[in-house]
């Protein structure tokens, strides 16, 4: 029964990883940008949510309603004014720029919020759970996070495949110059894609902050898990990213069941195995 429990908890944890990873997957799939500051932006979102919660006395779910749109605006701005400029130079420059952003963010957060760790006051959400069997229960919070991840990925998928703007995003991902020829303003389209990615980063950061404590240096670890989920699932495939997150979550939970110190390592080993045996990931997709 403990094993079943580990698998169930792992699947739910996978939702959080997928939520982290879908923004990374979108940025890479569309703009070929590896955003090394992805995890740090998530931590920043958690801090902003904390400020909103304590300042406006609203519950954690409401903070997302404020922080996610704010992050969308941040994403558009960062893309248009920082990442796009580096993209115009070379892909390597983009890597350096996002690495620089990561360091700047970590130090700015350290300056602003100190090195103390915080967590978002999720109240009854964190404590409450459904008792499925005497040995098996699932927490309200992890169920909500998993649900949010599935809804976000489904909505993103629907937007990309059906909406005219989603079509422009796919076209720009295929061939930037041709997208310009058909009338798409590629810089604006990239900005929109980054805005969406950053909104999901905000949700991931808030979910993470509700799950566990965070501090200004927590970002890179989040980035690694998100990367692993993307690579396991297959770059560019959003449903693959969800599956990748779940596989990573299950590997970590089952690993932790074997030995409490083995969890994270088990996740890395599964990631390495996928990388060795199926380097293109389990799903191959072009943003579909």
């Amino acid at each position, binding site marked *: 029964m403990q094993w079943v429990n580990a698998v169930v908890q792992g699947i739910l944890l996978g939702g959080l990883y997928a939520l982290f990873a879908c923004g990374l997957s979108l940025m890479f799939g569309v703009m070929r940008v590896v955003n090394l500051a992805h995890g740090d932006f998530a931590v920043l979102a958690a801090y902003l949510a904390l400020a909103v919660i304590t300042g406006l006395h609203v519950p954690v779910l409401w903070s997302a309603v404020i922080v996610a749109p704010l992050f969308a605006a941040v994403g558009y701005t960062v893309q248009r004014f920082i990442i796009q400029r580096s993209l115009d130079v070379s892909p390597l420059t983009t890597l350096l720029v996002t690495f620089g952003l990561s360091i700047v963010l970590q130090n700015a957060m350290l300056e602003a919020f100190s090195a103390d760790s915080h967590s978002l006051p999720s109240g009854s959400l964190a404590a409450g759970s459904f008792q499925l069997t005497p040995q098996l229960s699932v927490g309200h919070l992890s169920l909500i996070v998993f649900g949010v991840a599935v809804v976000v990925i489904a909505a993103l998928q629907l937007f990309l495949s059906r909406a005219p703007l989603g079509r422009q995003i796919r076209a720009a991902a295929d061939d930037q110059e041709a997208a310009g*020829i058909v*009338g798409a303003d590629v810089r604006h389209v990239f900005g929109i894609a980054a805005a969406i990615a950053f909104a999901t980063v905000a949700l991931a950061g808030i979910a993470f902050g509700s799950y566990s404590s965070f501090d200004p240096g927590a970002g890179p670890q989040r980035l690694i898990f998100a990367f692993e989920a993307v690579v396991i699932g297959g770059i560019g495939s959003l449903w693959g990213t969800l599956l990748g997150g779940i596989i990573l979550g299950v590997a970590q939970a089952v690993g932790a069941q074997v030995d409490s110190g083995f969890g994270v390592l088990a996740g890395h080993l599964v990631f390495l195995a996928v990388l060795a045996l199926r380097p293109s990931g389990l799903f191959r997709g072009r943003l579909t």
Partner: protein
Amino acid sequence: MEALREVGFTLAAGETVALIGANGAGKSTLLRTIAGLHRPSNGSVRLDGREITTLPAHARVARGVVLVPEGRRLFASLTLEENLLIGATRARAGSWNVDRVIELFPWMADRRSRPTVHLSGGEQQAVAIGRALMANPRVLLLDELSLGLAPALVKRLYDILPQLLAEGVSILLVEQDVTQALRVSDYAHCLLEGRITLSGRPSELTPAHVEAAYFGLVARPAGAG
């Protein structure tokens, strides 16, 4: 590198002008400059007398300057119908829509929801033309329509041009297939090393003239420019 020098010509409404010339003569560069993909170091591109030299490609589409690029450049992630629909991203007001394109190329009806990668070269070229028409162009720029296609197929594609011209669309085409280009155009310019070496109506151009201008064997004849 300077690919174009001293090139000047005008395109009137409802007219087809052909740019012919050998590889590397600057034909495609000229077309891409008009489409907004290259910014000229000097000189200007005007539409209705208004300067559009600094407008990016997507903004020119909104003004009706639409390119069918060399190599077709269809979007691999999009279905045939989506490839057409995306052509309407900045469409001007006009009568073109997916149904009308399918009327022009009836075979598309069965394959509208399939990707375009499995289509033949000629079919892909038709999709690229349809995609450009979706923007309701005033000036249609056709870059090497014949590239890699069987001559019979090329003729079929060029045979739809009169329909477009009847609606007041102007066509500027770049073509290596000189016979084809002269057959469909009202006026032709021959480019050599970034310069126009010969201009005239196809009926006035003798094969010897064209050959000379094409390969740069003699100085430009009187009246060229």
